[in-house]
């Protein structure tokens, strides 16, 4: 049936080995493929070219403050949850040159940077990360000011999403309504079932990338298997977060004693903000040569946990761990709603896994909920 072109919205099935043909189509269309791959003792996002670059047959154990790679008993392509990297680093790079200032002949010239926009195909975007991208869209595109670099990268990006059938033990997307199934925004959405990838076609471009790929209309049994896997995933979330009464729950408990307890554990290391797929704070710095004849103005990721983040001439607005942790959590789960009409958390669990002090925001919220003012 490969001669009949599938339509947008159709569910089709392909053999797992056919995924390479999709990759080849993407490469031929000029995309740089970014996908999960075995990196520095973790499943990271990096440039890939072949399906064999994927961590086939690998999974991981995640817990608060713990991440360990592990072999699987099968050869699943996507049998793991999210790692430390999110797609944020490709849409909103950690370092971006804004302009160059040159001193010459007693004058200086400002030259805005004209960064080339990479054309990325994101392979294996999980539902939580799809929602994270949608949240960053609101921050960078629908907030009065348009971040043009983000916009260009975002518009050119191809998204091959992957439904989550094996959530990690720090995941809580089901609580946040952000997973484990992808609803919208993808070019292709893949569900891995034994021997087969079930694909939902989300866009014209997604359909084009199936050119020459052997496919068949997904059968009832395949669809049912995928549905069952997602239903099971929904009930296997390692964590839960009750989002009822947010944001007011936090606004009404700004002086809760729990902030002091968590501050005693928090190292203010900023790991949570760096792995978070929605955190967007940045700093702007000058990098000059020793004679200050040429300077570059560079935007870099920043974190509300950094001491000088809130620095004004009189000192720091938030000088304590307590103030900074409260700012972070209150922003994520309260003021974000006022600012962008959505919570700033998608339940990916990265901040729990990558916290060296094993701080778990779901625990913090429950503690405030149980003992706090309502």
């Amino acid at each position, binding site marked *: 049936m490969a001669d009949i072109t599938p339509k947008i919205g159709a569910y089709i099935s392909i053999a797992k080995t056919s995924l390479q043909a999709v990759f080849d189509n993407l490469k031929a269309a000029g995309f740089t493929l970014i996908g999960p791959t075995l990196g520095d003792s973790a499943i990271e996002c990096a440039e890939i070219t072949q399906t064999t670059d994927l961590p086939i047959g690998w999974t991981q154990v995640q817990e608060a403050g713990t991440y360990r790679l592990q072999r699987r008993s099968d050869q699943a392509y996507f049998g793991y949850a999210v790692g430390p990297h999110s797609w944020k680093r490709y849409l909103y790079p950690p370092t*971006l040159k*804004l*302009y160059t*200032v040159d*001193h010459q*002949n*007693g*004058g*200086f*010239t*400002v*030259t*805005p*940077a*004209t*960064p080339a926009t990479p054309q990325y195909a994101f392979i294996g975007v999980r539902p939580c990360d799809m929602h994270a991208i949608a949240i960053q869209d609101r*921050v*960078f595109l629908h*907030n*009065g*000011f348009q*971040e*043009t*670099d*983000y916009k260009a990268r975002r518009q050119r990006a191809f998204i091959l999403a992957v439904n989550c059938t094996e959530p990690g033990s720090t995941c809580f997307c089901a609580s946040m309504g952000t997973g484990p199934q992808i609803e919208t925004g993808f070019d292709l959405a893949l569900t891995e079932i034994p021997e087969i990838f079930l694909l939902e076609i989300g866009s014209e471009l997604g359909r084009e990338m199936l050119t020459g790929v052997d496919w068949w209309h997904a059968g009832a049994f395949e669809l049912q298997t995928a549905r069952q896997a997602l239903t099971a995933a929904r009930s296997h979330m390692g964590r839960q977060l009750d989002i009822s009464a947010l944001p007011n729950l936090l*606004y009404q408990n*700004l*002086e809760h004693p729990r902030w002091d307890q968590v501050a005693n554990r928090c190292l203010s290391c900023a790991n949570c903000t760096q792995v978070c797929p929605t955190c*967007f*704070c*940045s*700093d*702007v*710095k*000058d990098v*000059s040569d020793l004679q*200050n004849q040429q*300077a570059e*103005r560079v*935007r870099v990721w*920043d974190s*509300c946990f950094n001491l000088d*983040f*809130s*620095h*004004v*001439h*009189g000192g720091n*607005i*938030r*000088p*304590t761990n307590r*103030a900074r942790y*409260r*700012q972070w959590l*209150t*922003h994520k789960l309260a*003021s974000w709603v*006022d*600012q962008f009409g959505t919570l700033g958390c998608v339940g990916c669990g990265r901040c729990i896994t990558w916290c060296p002090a094993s701080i778990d925001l779901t625990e913090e919220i429950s503690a405030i909920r149980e003992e706090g003012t309502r």
Partner: protein
Amino acid sequence: MIMPTINSGPVPRVETIGDAYVPYPAKITHIKEEAYAITTYNVVFEDELRREQYHFEAGQFNMLYLPGIGEVPISISSDPAEPHCLGHTIRFAGNVTRAIGRLNVGDIIGLRGPYGSAWPITRLYGEDIYIVTGGIGMAPLRPVLYTIMRHRDRFGRVVVLYGARTPADMLYTAEFESWQAHDIQLHTTVDRADPHWRGQVGVVPMLFYHLRLDPRKTVVLTCGPEIMIRFVVYEALARRVPKEKIFLSMERNMKCALGFCGHCQFGPSFICKDGPVLTYAQIEPFFGVEDF
């Protein structure tokens, strides 16, 4: 430091993210030392078109830039009716402001703006206006005074309550007479007097005790140290001034001034775009929360 001229940017091209951050060259035309380590710099855009197109409202701020050193948010302290020459009253506190302190007339700095919300001038028509400030908090309110002096008949009673650490720290003292000549009442106080000081000693909110104000037609505009603002608000509330008519200018660390770098957040507000001028009603739930 000899600051060379900035040549204008390259030929028109596609808008990039850098554009939003690009500062435009402006020449320092006048420098006036106001107090110890506080100086007013008047600057004029080098580019004529930019000079003509630039307008600001009282209370807004600019980002001032020195290449290789950095950028600082500074309130515009001059007359909004004369936007071709922009006054910035700067305290030398950090590395950028200290470097600005080494500049001379004729030197060039980078400037982008204006940013942020403004004092609600048209809502002040017919009202009694109480301008309550401490120290360099006077700077963002000076444009309001210029506007009032230009159209004095549009406003009711105008009272300035102004405090500084010492008499020598008081800004714009040379202009006090001109304010008073325009029927602007001025009450001053200092934290520590010197032998020549014959006025009030004490904190700014205490100056409210000199006044009998009519809450039905009173608007309070305040800027200064956050602790001062807090007690000014309490004094105003105690006199039944409605929350919506207490305006304050907040200070936070503005880095991008575009509303997305996150540095200047105060609860739900980005001070760079939702502020710096806010009503007390807008921030009441977070007002006075320590380290928030």
